């Protein structure tokens, strides 16, 4: 009995272990039907979100989708017009930011220019009236954790971007918040530092067991860092799921496109039982996909990623049904380029243009066939 509990705990430590059990009953941080208005403009249109203790959740979306507004509502800098925000079952919707036990890391870092690194990191502890020696010890510990040992006496103006970012993170971690909120903290760093800081932050968060909500517009950043990704579109949640979920099983046309399946083809299909039968068209073969509970009939939007398909010379009867049920498109190469690793081709498929990667290059003007495996094809009803 005891062993199984320990085992379960161990399993939960694994990536995504907590969240894969689905919607939790005892969420640590809960956003319930939050609506936020800026004047007449509804920025959040009833958002529901549950975050478990120790989980790392990324809010992902393009600019203006409401992700920062959601984060600021959680932090207490925006008051929702309706709805509630709960921490550990306690309603904090009406509480000011300083009473919520959260720490926000700002995109601009918002370090206080008149204080040294030590004073910036130690400020939250000073507010908690900790003895000087304790504060000093904690600040030293944080500095060691973040590799800021030698910089304690410097002012923020004399730090590099990466160092400022770490001071901002250290300041937030020093108060040992229940919830760490990160507002695009990596977007002002240059690309190479960004990659290492990503891993530093997730490693720290796991080690300290902090619940974290991270706002980003960078798809890869969200995929790499988060246990669960919340994709926001136009003030609403488009999909919540693990990185594999949102990448391989996008719930909507928007999510598919946002997660990189930018190639769009229009098809027509009928659902028969658990099979979606795609009708052959002037540029595509007939194909079969499993319905997985969906009823897709009539015109469809089909999306796929350029790197998950196969490109080959157009054979004879390419538009006939293939044995594996995969979809084939026929087109003409219009443009090629070599971005590194794979060759990139712009291919005209009837009126549409798709971008497809291939290990070998096909010259311009050649007729080619694109094979899209069933798992790489995302089908949505056409709006």
């Amino acid at each position, binding site marked *: 009995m005891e062993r199984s509990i320990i085992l379960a705990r161990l399993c939960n430590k694994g990536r995504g272990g907590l969240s894969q059990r689905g919607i939790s009953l005892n969420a640590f941080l809960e956003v319930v039907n939050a609506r936020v208005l800026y004047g007449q403009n509804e920025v959040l249109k009833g958002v529901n979100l549950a975050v478990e203790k120790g989980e790392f959740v990324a809010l992902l979306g393009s600019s203006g989708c409401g992700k920062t507004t959601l984060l600021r509502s959680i*932090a*207490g*800098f925006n008051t929702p017009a309706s709805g509630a925000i709960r921490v550990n079952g306690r309603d904090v919707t009406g509480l*000011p*930011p*300083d009473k919520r036990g*959260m*720490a*926000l890391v*700002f995109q*601009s870092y*918002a*370090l*206080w*220019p*008149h204080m040294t690194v030590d004073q910036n990191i130690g*400020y*939250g502890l000073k*507010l*908690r009236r900790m003895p000087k020696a304790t504060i000093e010890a904690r600040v030293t510990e944080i500095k060691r954790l973040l590799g800021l040992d030698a910089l304690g006496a410097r002012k923020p103006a004399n730090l590099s971007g990466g160092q400022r970012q770490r001071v901002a993170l250290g*300041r*937030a971690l020093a*108060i040992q918040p229940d919830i760490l909120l990160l507002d695009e903290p990596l977007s002002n760093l240059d690309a190479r530092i960004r990659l290492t800081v990503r891993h530093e932050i997730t490693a720290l968060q796991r080690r300290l067991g902090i619940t974290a909500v991270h706002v980003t517009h960078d798809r890869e950043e969200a995929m790499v860092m988060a246990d669960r990704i919340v994709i926001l579109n136009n003030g609403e949640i488009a999909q919540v799921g693990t990185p594999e979920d949102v990448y391989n099983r996008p719930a909507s046309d928007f999510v598919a496109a946002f997660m990189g399946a930018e190639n769009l083809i229009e098809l027509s299909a009928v659902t028969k039982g658990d099979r979606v039968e795609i009708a052959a068209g002037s540029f595509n073969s007939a194909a079969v996909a499993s319905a997985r509970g969906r009823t897709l009939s009539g015109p469809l939007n089909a999306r796929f990623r350029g790197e998950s398909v196969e490109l080959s010379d157009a054979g004879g009867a390419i538009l006939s049904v293939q044995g594996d049920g995969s979809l084939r498109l026929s087109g003409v190469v219009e443009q090629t380029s070599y971005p590194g690793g794979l060759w990139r081709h712009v291919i005209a498929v009837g009126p549409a243009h798709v971008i497809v990667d291939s290990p070998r290059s096909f010259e311009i003007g050649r007729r080619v066939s694109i094979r899209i495996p069933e798992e790489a094809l995302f089908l949505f009803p056409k709006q």
Partner: protein
Amino acid sequence: MSARFDWKWIPRGIALGILAFVIFGPLANLLLWTVTERWYFPHVLPLKYGFSFWANVFSPRGNAMSSLGTSVFIATLTVILSLGLAIPAGYALARLRLPFRGLILLALLIPQAFPNLPVYVNIARIFYQYGLNGTILGVVLVHVTHGLVYAVWIATAAFSAIDRELEEAARSMGASALRGFWDVTLPIAAPGLLASAIFVFLESLDEFTGTYFVGAPDVTTLPLLLYTAGAGGNYQIASITALILLVPSIAFMFVVERFLRSDVLSKVGH
């Protein structure tokens, strides 16, 4: 190779010379008068130099030191009262979405917009009813109406220049609004506020008209002493008093120049 003389420099030199004379001529005359014992028409320079009038000014009977004391006391009170009003007002104008924000800023200019004399005569009349005439408090109030424009405008600019996220970061770390203001906003705004304090101080130190109508003859500030001495033909006393007034002005201007950063200046009146 001979360096060619640029003839354009002749009018420029003349213009600069005239400008320098306009600025420094009166100052040189003032300095000369402070060390003059005897000087009358038609002599170009004083006949006798000496410091006997300095001894006169700084003697216990000379009034200058007590006037200086009164002036500094009034200026200090004016600064405290102005900043006490300007800090909350400036913060509110900078941070809150106040209706008629522009109008409020403009309203502070009104005391300056009308001719001083009628305004002060009427203030004196009103103050007379409340027994404020001839009191330090009365003079301080007049100076505050004068200094508040600088104080509020500069304080508003100083607070506007502070990134709101710096305050939010303090809140996020657990500081109450007041604590965050005290620990973060105020120290960052301090240079701007110091500059506005200096403006108000100098404005009060120099102020004549209002002091004359509200304060005289019971309250004697340095400018009033200067006026009396000048009107009595005692140019030595007047010049020495003027010099005493000039010293803090110049000293403070250097301080202001250092502290008033361009990001604050660019927000004045916005």
